């Protein structure tokens, strides 16, 4: 069947993408609008909102907080997910399915419940709120995503390659650095980038645990209370959309790098 000749299907695809992307496109559109309100007609083109956004010093602090939390949480999550993925792909053990399910739980339970439980535990321990609990919460939240990506990458890993390296004179560490790591590196980077994006965009956990240290989404939420500040939040939103899209595309490309052609997946498996 020729895809483009089927008019029904063609129409459906157009409709689908319209619903998916038009609302999102309003953000960048109005971020260039020379006016205070998110309403048609558009009054003129301006970059003022972007200038205003850039000059907000609280935003800078929130941005750096988000980057710091994103990198730390994603590195920890990728490391933990790598260990789990290694165990699931290399060994068969008792309770494997249960363990797998248990690790996936944070991905399945409503985020608000996760956020509230973390808050309750953290306060009961008596530690101050701030970036540390957010990092812990985000690590927990990212591990399932990272693990799924890494498992899909590592499932095809031929363990004979590690044995061959041992056979050719390398020890356990040498084998890891010269064979395992280079082959899995694209997957690890993809996992890191996706974890970073997830953490960067995450709102609820950050909102509950932030205290006075805001991440970017929490900052945006705060700004929405002031009608005057709306345009620069739109500008910020537009920048974040472009940024995350680029990172996810990079992650997708990396994940498939060096995979045999027929094994390449169209999805990122989440």
């Amino acid at each position, binding site marked *: 069947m020729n895809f483009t000749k089927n008019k029904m299907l063609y129409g459906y695809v157009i409709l689908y993408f319209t619903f998916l992307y038009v609302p999102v496109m309003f953000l960048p559109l109005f971020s260039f609008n020379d006016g205070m309100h998110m309403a048609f007609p558009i009054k003129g083109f301006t970059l003022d909102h972007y200038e205003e956004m850039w000059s907000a010093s609280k935003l800078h602090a929130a941005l750096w907080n988000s980057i710091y939390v994103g990198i730390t949480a994603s590195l920890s999550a990728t490391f933990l997910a790598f260990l789990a993925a290694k165990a699931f792909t290399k060994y068969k053990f008792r309770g494997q399915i249960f363990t797998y399910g248990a690790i996936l739980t944070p991905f399945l339970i409503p985020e608000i419940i996760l956020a509230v439980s973390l808050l309750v535990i953290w306060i009961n321990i008596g530690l101050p709120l701030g970036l540390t609990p957010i990092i812990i919460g985000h690590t927990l939240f990212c591990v399932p995503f990272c693990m799924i990506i890494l498992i899909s990458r590592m499932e095809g890993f*031929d363990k*004979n*390659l590690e*044995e*061959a*390296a*041992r*056979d*050719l*004179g*390398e*020890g356990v560490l*040498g084998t890891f650095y*010269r*064979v395992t790591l*280079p*082959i899995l590196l694209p997957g690890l980077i993809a996992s890191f980038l996706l974890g970073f994006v997830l953490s960067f965009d995450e709102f609820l956990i950050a909102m509950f645990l932030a205290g006075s240290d805001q991440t970017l989404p929490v900052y945006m939420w705060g700004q929405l209370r002031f009608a005057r500040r709306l345009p620069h939040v739109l500008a910020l939103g537009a920048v974040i959309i472009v940024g995350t899209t680029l990172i996810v595309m990079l992650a997708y490309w990396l994940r498939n790098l*060096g995979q*045999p052609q027929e094994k390449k997946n169209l999805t990122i498996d989440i």
Partner: protein
Amino acid sequence: MNKNFIEIKNVSKYFGNVKAVDDVSFSINQGEFFSLLGPSGCGKTTLLRLLAGFEHPSKGQVFIDGSEVTSVAPNLRPTNMVFQNYAIFPHLNVRKNIEFGMRKENLTKEEMEDRVGEVLNLVKLQGYEERYSNQLSGGQRQRVALARALIKRPKVLLLDEPLGALDKKLRDEMQIELRNLQKQVGITFVFVTHDQGESISMSDRVAVMNEGKIKQISEPHDLYYNPQNIFVSDFIGTTNFLSAQTLSKDGDLIYVSIENIGQFKLNNKLSIGENTNDVTCSIRPESIELSSEPIQNKELKMHGKIVNTSYYGELTTFHVVIEGIKNPLIVSSQRYDHKSFLSNNCYIGINLEDINLLTNE
């Protein structure tokens, strides 16, 4: 030449309750092409992995060139392995694959180039240095795996079904090439295969394994003509089994009653006792003469009917039913003249020395 270059002493390997290798002892000579042959799950690959150091014995000891290696790590053994799927490093090109194991040898750039050139020449793979694994054919990958192992100049080269992934014609070529290569480098080869033809055509000696045990270690010719038990006789080539009982001994010979055919005086190479009920006579299809005329010069002569004829080009296989014998006899002959058999009547003749007497164990 060292007679006991590799020594395996009372080695057992258990995986849970499974005895993959069960109290096995034997030795391999220096410079020998030695095959481990058996059906899948017989323990041959486990035995090879015990030699490589990927597994360690549950019991027993392994020696290579006089030193005990029973629990030595694979990277510290004088062995190298060619894997069944070749395990070429996909992130490295052919040259880097071959150089992989040379990192700790501290060679100069020139020395390294010489060594790489030498093995590339040996496996006939010059000009492929810059290619990656996914740009090579199965046969070329195998050559990379061989070169990568041989550049280390191991005392023992271990090969795990290296020809299994190749098509038939290439496999036949590689058999000859591998054998020549082994003679050229003089390294001891331990070769695992489930293909009896492959092991017989290439090896100096073959160990036949089943259920974790060695059933026989012999030169290929002996394995075929002097099997020591029913398993080996059945596993190597095709054979006819006739049930029999031993009667009395006469020196090295023994009187045997075979099914309903009669009593004969046979060689007793395995020294089977008198009056044993469960014995079996094994006769190779090509040791049986088939003719449309009564046969004169054979000690065992019978009359039968041909029930089935299969033509294989160089050989024809006949199934012959004989009165008093349970299963049809399989007879193979280079002649294809079944039309000369009047209403499928035929005569067969067997020399008594071509009958192998085996015990049923």
